[in-house]
Structures are given as structure tokens and as C-alpha cells.
């Protein structure tokens, strides 16, 4: 069994008296693609934000590589890359400037050639590279953020609704990329409500409903998770 990279241990998050996450437990090993499925307000984004150290847990713990995120936030953040649902990069900078800036902040300066190669890898058209991001479509911004995440060479990727707003071709390219990264040993944690996409790339899927994991699916050896079963469980609100 490979090492545990991501672990939610009786994770509870409350805002005031409202419980957002309640006793959430899951584990992702190195190279796993763990997808958390759930409807709007299920607590998916809260789970990601807790693992990124943006929201403190009220009980239990969110751990990355055995370290409690809230006690070692800066240390943990060095190991992760994050792709938010709505890509938050600077509109006044072009793709290359954005990437270069964030890499400099993360103390990972990279050569121009590597940046170009990565942008090509995520299929962002070269004619768009020098345009300010404010003029990009959501898909193009998503690709830029993916390129940035890849260039950070982080062993753990957190993806928040990564395919929302992408066209079918881009979704396909993205799924291929996730599979490829997973094969390289990158652990990926994604939250989505795209059942088919999740089943296609993830080897573990958790169903989140009202802040609780109501079901967990594991892919068989060399196979994909049964889309039908997940879809039914998702439609029924969990518990197949």
C-alpha cells in the first residue's frame, strides 16, 4: 500500500451554528484521483478550502502527507497546487506574465521555453499567450491555471469543478491530462458534479450530501468506476 497523501479524519466544519461538514472521512494514496461528487451546497468547495487551509476545521482534521493542514499551513501549501472553479488570475496580465508572477511568488522560476511547452500541453492557442487574461474565455483562463498548476510541479492537485465551462474537446484533453498526471504519481483531489467526468478519471469517488460522505466508490483493478451505479446513487442522494 502506497503512502497516504490526503486524509480527512472525522472532519467537521461549522460556520456559526451551521454545520457545513459533518464527520467526513476519506483517504487518497499517492497517484490516486479522488473525486468528491455532490450537488450545490453539499460542502464540496468547503472540503477543498479546508484542505487548503482557508477554512479551519471545527473538529477532526484535514491532513496532507500526515501533517494537519491547520497546524502546518505554509508547509502543506508548498506541496499543493490549486485550480479554483472560477479561475483567479490577473486580468491585466497575459498568460505568460501570470504564470511567471505566480511561479516567482512560489519561488519556482521557470524558463520561457518550459512555460511555452506547458501552455502547448494544455492546448492554449499561442496567439492568445500575449493577450491580457481579461480578454480570455473561461476555458482559456482554466487552461492557463492548469498550466500554472503543472509548472508548480506540486505532488498534490486540488481541483474545484475543473471542467465547468470547458467545451467537450477541452474536457477530453483535461481528462487525459489528469490520467497522465496520476500515472506520474501526482495525487489529485477534485470536487465536481460531473458524474461522467469523475467516473472517467477518478479511481475513488465519494458522494457528499449535506456535509456528509454518504457513499464511497472504488475503481476495480485496471478498470473504471461503474458510471451507472454512481449516477443512480447521485440521483437518489447517496446510499445505494
Amino acid at each position, binding site marked *: 500500500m502506497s503512502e497516504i497523501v490526503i486524509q480527512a479524519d472525522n472532519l467537521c466544519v461549522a460556520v456559526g451554528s451551521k454545520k457545513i461538514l459533518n464527520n467526513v472521512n476519506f483517504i487518497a494514496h499517492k497517484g490516486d484521483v479522488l473525486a468528491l461528487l455532490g450537488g450545490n451546497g453539499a460542502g464540496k468547495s468547503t472540503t477543498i478550502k479546508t484542505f*487548503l487551509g*482557508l477554512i479551519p476545521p471545527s473538529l477532526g482534521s484535514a491532513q496532507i502527507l500526515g501533517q494537519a493542514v491547520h497546524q502546518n499551513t*505554509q508547509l502543506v*501549501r508548498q506541496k499543493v497546487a*490549486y485550480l*479554483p472553479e472560477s479561475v483567479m488570475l*490577473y486580468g*491585466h496580465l497575459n498568460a505568460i506574465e501570470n504564470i511567471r508572477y*505566480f511561479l516567482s511568488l512560489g*519561488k519556482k522560476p521557470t524558463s520561457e521555453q518550459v512555460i511555452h511547452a506547458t501552455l502547448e500541453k494544455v492546448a492554449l492557442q499561442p496567439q492568445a499567450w500575449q493577450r491580457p487574461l481579461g480578454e480570455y474565455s473561461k476555458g482559456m483562463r482554466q487552461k492557463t491555471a492548469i498550466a500554472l498548476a503543472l509548472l508548480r510541479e506540486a505532488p498534490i492537485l486540488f481541483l474545484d469543478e475543473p471542467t465547468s465551462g470547458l467545451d467537450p474537446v477541452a474536457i477530453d484533453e483535461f481528462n487525459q491530462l489528469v490520467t497522465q498526471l496520476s500515472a506520474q504519481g501526482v495525487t489529485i483531489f477534485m470536487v465536481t458534479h460531473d458524474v461522467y467526468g469523475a467516473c472517467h478519471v477518478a479511481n475513488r469517488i465519494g458522494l457528499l450530501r449535506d456535509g456528509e460522505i454518504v457513499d464511497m466508490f472504488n475503481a476495480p483493478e485496471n478498470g473504471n468506476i461503474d458510471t451507472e451505479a454512481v449516477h443512480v446513487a447521485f440521483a437518489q442522494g447517496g446510499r445505494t
Partner: protein
Amino acid sequence: MIATLLCIARDEWRYWRRSRLALSLLIIALILAIASVFVTHTSMQLEAEQRTHLQTLAQQKFADQPDRHPHRMVHYGHYVFRAPPPLSSLDPGIDPFTGTSVFLEGHRRNGATFSEQQQSSGLSWLGTLSPAFVMQLLTPLLLIVMGYGAMTREREAGTFDFLKVQGITPPYLIAGKGLALISAGLLVFSPFAIGAIWALINGAEGSATAMFLVSYVLYILIWSSLILLASTLSANNAASFSSLTCLWIVLCLVLPRIASNTATVVVASPGKLETDFAVLQELRKLGDGHNSNDPAFSALKSSLLAKYEVDKIEDLPVNFKGIVAQKSEAKLTKILNQFSEKQMQEAQDQANVARQFGWLSPAIAIQNASMKLAGTDLENYHRFLREAEAVRFSFVQSLNKLHAENVSYTDDANKYKDHETHHRAKVDAKNWQILDNFHFTPLAADQRISNSQLPLTQLLMLFLLCCGVTFFAGKRV
């Protein structure tokens, strides 16, 4: 660490360069700063040359007077001019509001006249466009426009959390943005610093000039911290901008007015008319110095007659009229000085009360520090008035001495009877060389620095407080 801060600061500058509003404002502020330094420097230099020239001219005109009765020269009078100190080219202080020269004559202690304010249009109460005005009032406004969105922009765009995940802690982000904001402030400050170096070449003392510049750097740091604090605590750009604009209005416009109003309430001082009447009442008790037969001088007459063992004042070896003029001037000056000192003390007490508001407003603290270090504050003005009075008393008494010793009582009493007597009642024109070269210089640098301890401490405390609060606010977001 430094590399990350520089990276954030560089990006902020890139944002400003690409945002036309910020860039345009920065250019306008820079032009304004350069223009104000150039214009004020030129005008103050001209003013200094003019006042020095007029001082020489006044001395020359006095010395060039023909043979005259000494008391006519007492009333002919003399002018002294206040030469502006070198740093006044950056902060003219109260110079435009107070007079630049004093007419010195017998029996009167005149106030300073010919202030820029008295000679200009009514709108000049708003303040002249001096470099100090640009730095104290306009630079914070520019920094607000440039920096109000420093943190809220990140929050609104959603990049704040994204940056955190990249390992950039909010205090780091604030420090990086602060570095950019401070550098923008220093850019506008650079013509001011060049002006200070120019003043240094023109005779300003190094230590006072250095402290003068340090106080302005502290002021820029305080405003940069305040802007970042407001931007960190505000939910969005609009809230940040409006809160900072209100803060600027309160700190730069409202509090200075409240300070001066409070000072006049706390330290009440009588009006000019009231004071003038009180002075007049006291002076009436002294008797008429022009009239040696005034009963007020009968004791003096008796003592002199006894001293020289003569029966009549005509037999005295000195001119009794001159002695009366001397004694009368001394008594009169004592009373005038008492009132004047009281008035100056009241003004000083009011200024001291107003200065305490510097603990609340950096604008008040910098105004005081700047004027004190430049030598253009109230204390220096009072020094000028005192020095002018010393010159007045000295030259009037010198003339009275001439009157007592060089003009006989008989000639003096009969000077209008015939041409011959009138001529004998005059003294030789060479006696008019009694005036020393008057050149007003502000307090020595170490004295000015020591006097500006309070506003400098206020600036330092406000800086530490703002930095501390901003840092803790950054840690909590």
C-alpha cells in the same frame, strides 16, 4: 523573502502602469511636485534677495539722513526685514500669513506688515501651492487613489485566496504592496528631496535638513500603512475608497480646524481692540515723554537737579528733554513688552494645545515638524519680533542719548524761535551710523531639532501604531 516582496511590489507597479488612471495621477502629482518646488524655490529666493536688499536700503536711507534733531530720527524710524531661511523654499510655514517686515519707531511697538496674505486675493486662505502643501495634503490623496484597492482588488478578483494557496501570507502581500505604495510616495517626494539638497547648498544645516526629510518619509510611511490597513479591512474597493477619503478629510482638513478652534477656546485671548485699549490705558499713566514739564517726570527732575547740584534744568550738563525721552521710552517699552510677551505667550499656548492633536492626525504632526525644522514656525516668528524690538529699543535709546548729550536744553526748548537755534538743535549726520546690520536667522539646527521633538515623536508613534495594526489585521484576514 526580499525577492518575494520585490516581486509583489513590481506587479503592483505593473498594474499601475497599465491602469491609466493611476499612471496619469502619478504623473500629475510628480509634475505638481516639481512645479511647486521650482516655483516656491524661485519665489522664496527672490523674496530673500529682495528682503536683504530692502534691509540694506533701509539702513542706507537711515544713515543718509541729513543733520537733524535726534527725536526727528526717532520718528523717521527704520525697517527690519525677516529674511526667509533656506528650507522655507520647501515649507514657507506661517511666512505668507505673518508680516515680513517691522517698522521700528519711537514710542511704538509695531507688528509685522506686508504679509503675502494681506496682499493677495481672498482665496489664498486655502493655502499656497508650496511643496509642503503638495506633500502634506495632495500626496496622501494620490496614495489613496493608487492604493485603496491594493488588497480589496485581490479580494474582489478572488486572487487573495489563490495567493494564499501559493504560500503568500497576507502580511507578506501587505508588505509587498506597501513597498510599491511607499516607492510611489517617494517618487513624488523626490523633487522635494532634491529641493532640500538645493536648500542645503544654499546654507541650510545638514542635521535639520536630514530630520526634515526623515519626517516626510515617516509621513509617507504612515499614510501607506493607513491605506493598506483600510484596504485590508474593507470588504470591497468602494468601501475602501470611501473610508480612506473620509479619513483624509478628517485627518487633513477637519482635525486641523478642530485643533485650532479648540486651542482658541482652551486658551482664550483678548481681541486686538481690547488689547489696544488696555495698552493705551497703561501708557497714559506714564505721562507724555515729549513734554518735560509733565508732572509724571517731576521726581526725575528733582533727582537730577539734586544729583548735579543745580537749581534749574537749563543748568544741567545733560538735556533734560533727552533724559525724559530716555526714561519715558524705557518705561513705555517695558509696558509694551509686557503686553506683547503676554500676547505671544497666549499664541504659543494656543499653538501648544493645537499641537497635541498631532497624536491623532499625522497631517498636524508633519505640519508642526516641518515648520519647526524649516524655521518657519510661530516660535521663529516670535523670535523675529523680539529681535526687531531689541533693535528698535537700542536705536531709539541711542538717539535719545544723543538727544540728551549732544543737544543743549536751551537750544532744544527754543529750536523753533530762530533759524540759528534750530540749526544748533540738530546733530551731525555722521551720528546716524548707529544701526547694526540686521540679519534675521532662524534658530540653530540642534535647537530646531530639539524643539521638534514632540511632532517627530508623534509621527514615529503613529507610524509604529499604523504598522502594528496593519500587521495584525493582515494576520487575521
